[in-house]
């Protein structure tokens, strides 16, 4: 019987670990249902208006038709709606200023409900409506599916926010956001540029691809930049409650900054325990840290001064951000999130690429696609989510990293 018990306990242990791993991934989807349904109606009527315009455009050949795919209903609707709104603001601005090389743009948003199959359907539907360029998809899984379709059709595709490296495997797909592992490079770059610290400690989740991927690229980049990694400590999904040892090692090694490339649930324990032991280095997180202020009953004082890498802060004071935020608030009555800014930039990147190549709407989808993907590695675009964005032929973006700092219990841009 004892043997049997042990076997079963092992099975149960692994099952529970799996269950926990599963719940880690669900961090990304937490929309507000109420906001969603009201937005949905607005969206569908808008889409209807636009498609009417598109048919005219395709008929006369006098307009660029850009399609947008993202989740506008369902669990990830928050992201898709923000992206479509951001893109629409960019399109409106460009059209008001005379279009691209004098040609107006039509933007057609389609809903994919964060589902790969629905996303491919949306893509086919947009093609029927005369789409020439795709701005999408917003989320990674559908994006990978659609990227295979655009590769076959030779259509130019730029995703605002699908961050996996799988998305850009085909040469016609480009990203506005950093790839997951590039967040490590960007973080090291930011720390070195801003001279935040020279002695760095790292705590990361070695049982998670996202976290260990960022850690690996961070370490590599930190070495080339002359940052000294004094402690590089791991934890796993099975032991993510006690970080005292890892913090103690960072402290004894004299780390002035501790890099935390993992989700906010664990990060909130790290911050509490560091506070308990009287250790106050600079803490630096990546996009997984976004959300720490939303943890119920969390003492936000603990997060005071925490940096996190994110491409967009709505309270930034540069002219471009101020005018974007104002236009967004006027139109949609909300403060834009980073997805809106990513999509806004995506439209301007398409504009820059078209202007560079001089393609015209009467060319075929494949001709436009070939011209645009050829010119992308030569472009440099200043956007809301980074100045001097450039691309390599793989489609991954390279731009100056930006971070926000937590101040008085809110995200604030770093001055």
């Amino acid at each position, binding site marked *: *019987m*004892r043997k*049997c*018990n042990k076997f*079963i*306990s092992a099975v*149960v*242990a692994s099952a*529970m*670990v799996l*269950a*926990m791993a599963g*719940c880690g991934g*669900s961090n990304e989807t*937490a929309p507000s249902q109420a906001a969603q349904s009201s937005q949905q109606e607005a969206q569908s009527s808008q889409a209807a208006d636009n498609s009417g315009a598109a048919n005219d455009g395709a008929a006369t050949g006098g307009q660029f038709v850009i399609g947008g795919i993202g989740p506008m209903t369902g669990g990830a609707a928050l992201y898709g709606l923000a992206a479509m709104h951001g893109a629409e603001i960019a399109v409106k601005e460009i059209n008001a200023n005379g279009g691209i090389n004098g040609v107006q743009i039509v933007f057609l948003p389609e809903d994919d409900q964060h589902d790969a199959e629905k996303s491919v359907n949306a893509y086919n539907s947009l093609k029927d409506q005369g789409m020439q360029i795709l701005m999408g998809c917003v989320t990674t899984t559908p994006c990978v599916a659609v990227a295979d379709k655009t590769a076959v059709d030779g259509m130019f595709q730029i995703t605002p926010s699908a961050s996996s490296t799988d998305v850009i495997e085909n040469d016609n797909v480009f990203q506005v956001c950093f790839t997951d592992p590039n967040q490590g490079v960007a973080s090291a770059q930011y720390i070195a540029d801003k001279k935040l610290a020279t002695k760095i400690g790292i705590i990361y989740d*070695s049982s998670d691809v996202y976290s260990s991927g960022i850690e690996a690229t961070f370490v590599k980049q930190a070495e080339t930049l002359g940052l000294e990694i004094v402690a590089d*400590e*791991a*934890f*796993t999904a*099975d*032991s*993510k*409650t*006690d970080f*005292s*040892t*890892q913090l*103690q*090692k960072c402290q*004894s090694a004299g780390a002035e900054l501790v890099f935390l490339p993992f989700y*906010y*649930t*664990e990060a*909130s*324990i790290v911050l*509490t325990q560091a506070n*308990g*032991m*009287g250790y106050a280095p600079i803490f630096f997180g990546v996009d997984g840290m976004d959300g720490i202020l*939303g*943890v*119920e*009953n*969390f*003492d936000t004082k603990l997060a005071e001064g925490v940096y996190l890498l994110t491409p967009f802060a709505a309270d930034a004071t540069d002219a471009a951000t101020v005018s974007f935020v104002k236009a967004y608030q006027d139109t949609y009555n909300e403060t834009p999130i980073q997805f809106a800014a990513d999509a806004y930039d995506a439209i301007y990147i398409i504009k820059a690429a078209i202007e560079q190549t001089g393609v015209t709407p009467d060319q075929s989808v494949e001709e436009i696609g070939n011209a645009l993907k050829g010119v992308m590695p030569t472009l440099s675009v200043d956007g809301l989510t980074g100045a001097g964005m450039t691309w390599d032929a793989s489609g991954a973006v390279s731009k100056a990293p930006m971070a926000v700092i937590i101040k008085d219990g809110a995200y604030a841009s770093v001055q």
Partner: protein
Amino acid sequence: MNFWVYLINGISLGSVYAIIALGYTMVYGIAKMLNFAHGDVIMIGCYIVFLTMTRYGLHPVLSVLLSILFCTLLGITIEKIAYKPLRRALPLAVLITAIGVSYFLQNMALLVFGADTKSFSNVITVPGITLADGALKISGTTIVTVVACIIIMALLLLFINKTKAGQAMLAVSEDKDAAQLMGVNVNATISLTFAIGSGLAAIAGVLFCSAYPTLTPYTGSMPGIKAFTAAVFGGIGSIPGAFIGGILLGIIEILGRAYISSQLSDAIVFAVLIVVLLVKPTGILGKKMHEKV
């Protein structure tokens, strides 16, 4: 100096494991079943304290008492509904039922309390001790956990050895049928065991969440597994064994993480467990049958 810091961290983590392991070992010792739902009763206990304190503003002591009461009732209910009908079934069937109860509790919590992380405020206000000119800090939570653990252990031993109900428990653990023939109410005794075990789970939950302050529906499962390991390590069924096993497990985990590898700390813990069980298959204190309750 670092060594002492690690040692104290180890004792701190170990004392949490120990207090959870007490509940495991108590139920196993008497009912001869592994209550895998123990970790999840801990989680429910934490949610009760969290909700009563932050949403209804109750005094911490009151909400802890409320949580103990709730968990005790929950333990009795679980026992009545899920385990009692299986009294004569194979131990394996009961084990699988316990796993089912564990998932049921997790998913109920997911439904009722939501998946988002809650931050638990520390209910322990005892000041910590600073030694060696501030280089060594022992937090109030650690002190309270260790002290609570020792007190609970002593009370449990007294209860089992000195009271009539305790003697009945011993009798049931020795031989259910014989105990019944001698006039012991076996069902009531097992219910009482679950009541005490679940009440302990509530206390363990409060101490655990005070030390590691995030609360999700899965909070209880991993500590539950670790504490079960601690109970086996110390000799399952033995109350002092659970304490020693828990403390040792915590110390080995932290020292392994500090001096060998932070990635391999769990592997080290389980390697030590395997060695101990090879040398002494009943666990560290498993031999003393008369202390087995």
